[in-house]
């Protein structure tokens, strides 16, 4: 099978990544907007195109457990979930990371209940940021496919041995068709050799206890530090692997992606598919003479602190557009970026905006509002408190809905 170019949704691109990675085992559980991934894989398995065992579990909690346990036994394992499902299985995220297994899981982002919704924001995936899973966030369907291949190489590297979450936005990416290059199988095999664990497995000739209890802080701390250090090592290993990926497939994925950032005085930081909207807004602002660029966060765990510092060095103001809300504080990524640059001698003004919750559009006027605020902050040296983006039209529509719902005030 040579390389092909097809119109694929984010979900089918994910399925293609899994197919090319020659996965042995998929424990699954349906949830919108992820289900298309496991349905596509189920069809391929049924048609005999993939030599993979798939089992539908009784919950995401069981699904992540089975996936981690299979990975600990020595097979290449994949699974996928979204939103409520990720939270339902949350306990097991920390557990399987502690098992040091190279599981790859796709999360299709979707806002968290209540109120219940289907459309995306990143409270789901960011809730897992401290779990020990590495995280790769994707803007395009091509990126989804490629990231799955990169994720297996990274997760299975003896220096890392940690699970990885590959993230894409529900609907906006999961159900949007884009042209995707499907790599040649032989090229993928060159990039991603078969998984044969030397560290952990279950077999009769060599009994092994995995995931066992510890007594005492020093032992517990030792293992937690090990997970953290292995994850941090991921920065260097990611770069090696990503270079190799570029050599074989011709596509380059840095830890962060800069768009028009080279000479930028202002930088907008975003992640995932809404970055495409941000890039369009940046391009329009450039036409108006504003020297602005966009920085897209791609590798979120480990956090590429040095790359971030370099990317925003010398600019006047940075705005972080969080597509999530840390209730009682503000955006989740804003403080991460703040802490990364706090000790720099010269640092830009740093502004915080929250938008795109539950798939809410981020309009041209909202981007312009952000840009105006950045310019003003750079001029005055005062940064406004975190701002919640909402347009007047949206407000008026909401007023009408409240009336219909019977609220008088």
């Amino acid at each position: 099978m040579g390389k092909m170019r097809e119109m694929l949704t984010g979900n089918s691109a994910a399925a293609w990544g899994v197919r090319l990675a020659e996965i042995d085992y998929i424990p699954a559980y349906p949830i919108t907007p992820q289900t298309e991934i496991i349905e596509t894989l189920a069809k391929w398995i049924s048609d005999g195109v993939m030599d993979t065992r798939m089992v539908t579990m009784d919950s995401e909690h069981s699904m992540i457990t089975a996936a981690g346990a299979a990975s600990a036994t020595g097979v290449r394992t994949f699974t996928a979930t979204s939103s409520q499902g990720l939270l339902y299985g949350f306990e097991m995220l920390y557990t399987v990371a502690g098992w040091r297994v190279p599981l790859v899981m796709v999360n299709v982002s979707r806002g968290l209940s209540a109120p219940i919704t289907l459309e995306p924001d990143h409270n789901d995936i960011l809730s897992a940021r401290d779990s020990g899973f590495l995280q790769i966030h994707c803007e395009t369907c091509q990126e989804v496919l490629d990231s799955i291949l990169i994720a297996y190489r990274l997760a299975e590297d003896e220096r890392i041995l940690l699970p990885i979450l590959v993230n894409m936005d529900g609907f906006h990416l999961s159900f949007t068709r884009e042209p995707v290059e499907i790599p040649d199988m032989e090229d993928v095999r060159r990039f991603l050799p078969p998984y044969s664990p030397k560290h952990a497995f279950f077999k009769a000739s060599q009994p092994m206890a995995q995931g066992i209890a510890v007594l005492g802080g020093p032992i517990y701390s030792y293992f937690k530090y090990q997970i953290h250090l292995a994850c941090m090592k991921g920065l260097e290993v990611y770069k090696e692997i990503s270079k190799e990926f570029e050599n074989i497939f011709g596509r380059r994925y840095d830890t962060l992606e800069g768009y028009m950032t080279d000479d930028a005085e202002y930088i907008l930081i975003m992640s995932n598919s809404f970055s495409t909207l941000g890039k369009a807004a940046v391009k329009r602002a450039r036409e108006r003479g504003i020297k602005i660029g966009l920085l897209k966060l791609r590798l979120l765990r480990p956090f590429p602190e040095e790359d971030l510092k370099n990317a925003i060095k010398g600019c006047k103001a940075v705005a972080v557009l969080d597509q999530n809300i840390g209730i009682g504080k503000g955006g989740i990524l804003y403080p991460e970026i703040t802490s990364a640059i706090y000790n720099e001698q010269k640092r830009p003004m740093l502004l915080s905006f929250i938008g795109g919750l539950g798939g809410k559009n981020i309009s041209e006027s909202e981007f312009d509002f952000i840009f105006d605020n950045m310019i003003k902050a750079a001029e005055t040296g005062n940064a406004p408190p975190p701002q919640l983006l909402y347009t007047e039209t949206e407000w008026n529509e909401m007023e009408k809905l409240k009336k219909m719902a019977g609220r008088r005030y």
Partner: protein
Amino acid sequence: MDTPVKSIKDIPLDEILLPGTPACAGCGGLLTLRHCLKALGENTVIVNAAGCFTLLSIYPFTPFMSSWLYTAMACAPAGAQGVRDALDILIKKGRLGSEEDLKVVVLTGDGAAYDIGLASTSGALYRNLDFYYICYDNEAYGNTGFQWSGATPFASKTGTTPPGKTVPTGTLTNKKNLFEIWRSHKPPYLATISPAHPVDLYNKFKKAEQYKGPKLFIALSPCPPGWATDPSHSVNFAKLAVDTGIWALKEAILGDVKHTLIPRKFKPVENYLKEQGRFAHLFKPIRQEETIRKIQEMVDEYWKEVGI
């Protein structure tokens, strides 16, 4: 299938579970597990759920000659699914020799089996997973200090159902019938076992071996700290539970139930209750006659339905 053993002397002397665990003195569950593993042999991987036995393997030690995976409280059967499927895949694809195969054994207490892990167990049974399940049932959340679980019997005192002025009985609910819940899935093999009856226990495991699919065991396991009993008497209480008819030793093959050990003459349940601290409030300061009678009636009713 091997010929059934007739005496405890016929049970292998080899120990798979070695001494030196931090389990409480007189732990009925540990004794049960020791017998179970003699029947299962060395080539097993135990998939454990949160409970007392989580503390059997503590880094860097394990008392088992076999492998071990600790999961979490609700999902040991799901862990077993992952391990079983992975072993099957590795053997089928020629990446592991069939001599490396392992029996996958879920090990949980009653809190996991009756309550938090019931859904994941149901899933594994429904999917006909080829595994063993040993539930050490001490009739409460023992590892946290003995609180009410779905397995707690009527009138037992627990940390969360303490007898008092308004509720002198203690626990008001009846023990959940896990045997029947599991049996409704029609697993190939399902049995109750007792550490006081190792021959019956051993033969059940040996019989179960011939079946592919879920092989399930519920062991009533005396718990000296929770039951407030003398550690040296654990086997006596396990035996009394059978002799009074409170714990029926039985098996169900593809759903068909057969009792494997019926006492010739049932002892009164009072004999079982009165020596246990968890039932002491039924006897003093005031004897709760009606409650004791109700327990006896429930036991009588059970055996009447069986046809004894």
